[in-house]
């Protein structure tokens, strides 16, 4: 019995990944433009770093190289995090826009399966795109990764997945609460995360309240930890505190976001917000 229902949910789970794959393929031109946009955003940060010399730092100076790596790692990680975040956050908006939302919500599957399916597809797609951009960076910039400890970076990167999914699911709730304004709110959330999570600067430069918010943002630990590992060879044991914090945040955020999603779904069904016409 349990085996059967697990197989049922797994089948649906693959269905979501398959659907996303088909959507990405059908919207390939649109996806290509997005990838290009993300790539040039990261590149412009890289060249900004190269240009820092004109602002006073000497070219070839080791500090300059460090600054460039610092900024590039931030830009690349941020691109990855925001791509995955957006993919999940817009899952509901997208279905509302296509008009399929009632069909997905009516299906005999657990909401958890639905959400995890969307998360898995977003992760796979996000990693693939970030890898392509990362490859371009290696070719275009003279990066000094001689001190990097890749295992520590990977451990932190992996641990960051859980809280990232939690944040994405939380944001995907917004269009369920407000069909009209939910979509724009997702952009606002992303903007705030960019500001407080120390993407291009250490959060210590932020004024008090923003600094505090930064301490609460899981992205802060992701960016900080991966940077330490790539720039200064943070050891695996040294990475453990960051990994631990990220895992704890994920273990809290994911169930909380799924629970809130359920409450928002109930509310939408009570108020008739899933769909208006027909």
């Amino acid at each position, binding site marked *: 019995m349990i085996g059967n229902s697990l197989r049922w949910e797994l089948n649906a789970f693959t269905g979501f990944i398959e659907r996303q794959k088909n959507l990405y393929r059908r919207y390939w031109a649109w996806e290509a433009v997005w990838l290009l946009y993300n790539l040039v955003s990261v590149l412009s940060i890289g060249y900004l770093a190269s240009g820092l010399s004109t602002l006073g730092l000497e070219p070839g100076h080791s500090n300059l190289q460090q600054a460039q790596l610092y900024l590039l790692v931030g830009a690349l990680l941020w691109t990855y995090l925001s791509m995955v975040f957006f993919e999940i956050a817009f899952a509901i908006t997208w279905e509302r826009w296509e008009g399929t939302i009632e*069909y997905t919500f009516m299906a*005999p599957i657990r909401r958890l399966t639905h959400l995890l399916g969307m998360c898995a597809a977003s992760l796979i797609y996000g990693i693939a795109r970030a890898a392509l951009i990362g490859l371009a960076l290696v070719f275009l910039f003279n990066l000094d990764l001689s001190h990097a400890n890749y295992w520590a970076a990977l451990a932190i990167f992996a641990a960051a997945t859980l809280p990232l999914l939690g944040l994405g699911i939380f944001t995907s709730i917004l269009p369920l609460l407000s069909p009209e304004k939910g979509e724009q709110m997702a952009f606002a959330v992303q903007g705030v995360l960019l500001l407080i999570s120390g993407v291009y600067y250490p959060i210590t430069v932020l004024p008090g309240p923003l600094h505090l918010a930064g301490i609460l943002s899981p992205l802060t630990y992701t960016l900080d930890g991966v940077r330490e590992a790539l720039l200064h060879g943070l050891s695996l044991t040294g990475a453990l505190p960051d990994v631990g914090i990220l895992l704890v945040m994920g273990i809290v955020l994911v169930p909380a976001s799924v629970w809130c999603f359920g409450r928002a779904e109930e509310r939408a069904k009570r108020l008739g917000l899933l769909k208006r016409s027909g």
Partner: protein
Amino acid sequence: MAIRVSDLNAAAVEIESISKRFGQVGRMRQLMPWRKPKTPKLALDRVSLHVDTGRITGILGANGSGKSTLIRILATLLTPDAGRACVFGYDVVTQAADVRRHINRVSVEASFFKEMSPWENMLYAARLYGGGGDGTRSRVEAMLERLGLPLDTLDKPMKQLSRGQQQKVAIARSFLTSPSLLLMDEPTTGLDPRSKREVQDLVTSIRRDRAATVLLCTHDLQEAEVLCDRVVVIDHGRVLAEGTPADLIRIHAGPDGGSLEDAFMRLTGKRLEEDEEEKEE
């Protein structure tokens, strides 16, 4: 999916006095007195309904009478404010997961991922209902062929299909999951006469072959007369009359007999007169 034996003893649909009001002042709104209050709309007013398993039941009513609201409540997409609704003995609110396994719905507008092909959309739907393995493709092809959809449309983006063709894919999608209760909200609106016939034939045949129960909202009274074992006329969220098409014609169509359309006009017309009398009072 086959329905379990125990389910067969329960009525397909049992609705007890459900009401649904839209645009109520929510808890958040109460805290925002500066927002303009919306006038709530009573979409369903203490509706009760019993549908036997294996029947086709028509729901007739003017625009805005509450047909789609009723269908959505049975589809677990809306929660009623009051009353109780059960599908094969399962409560649509507290046992929604059990209800979902037995139902599917076709809505007026074909709701698809428009860039994806009919096949990709069907495959997605099949996966959500435990299918999608080998043989799905041939089942989809057989279904669409039966509905008269050219097979070369199967792999084109959905947006390139005409509205009627999209509607046929929507109908095929709902049949694909073999629901025991099929909720059809104006499935033939926008179809040409031949396609309409093909859909109607398919509805009759699934009822015959699989003992499925169908709830059919329609504005086509001829269709209701031909297809339905029973019809329910609702207006302003209330059930006005219920019975076989022949009963309704006999009782409501007027002294010199007539069609279901005459009965419908007289029934809903009576309501209009009542409304006017109420206003005058």
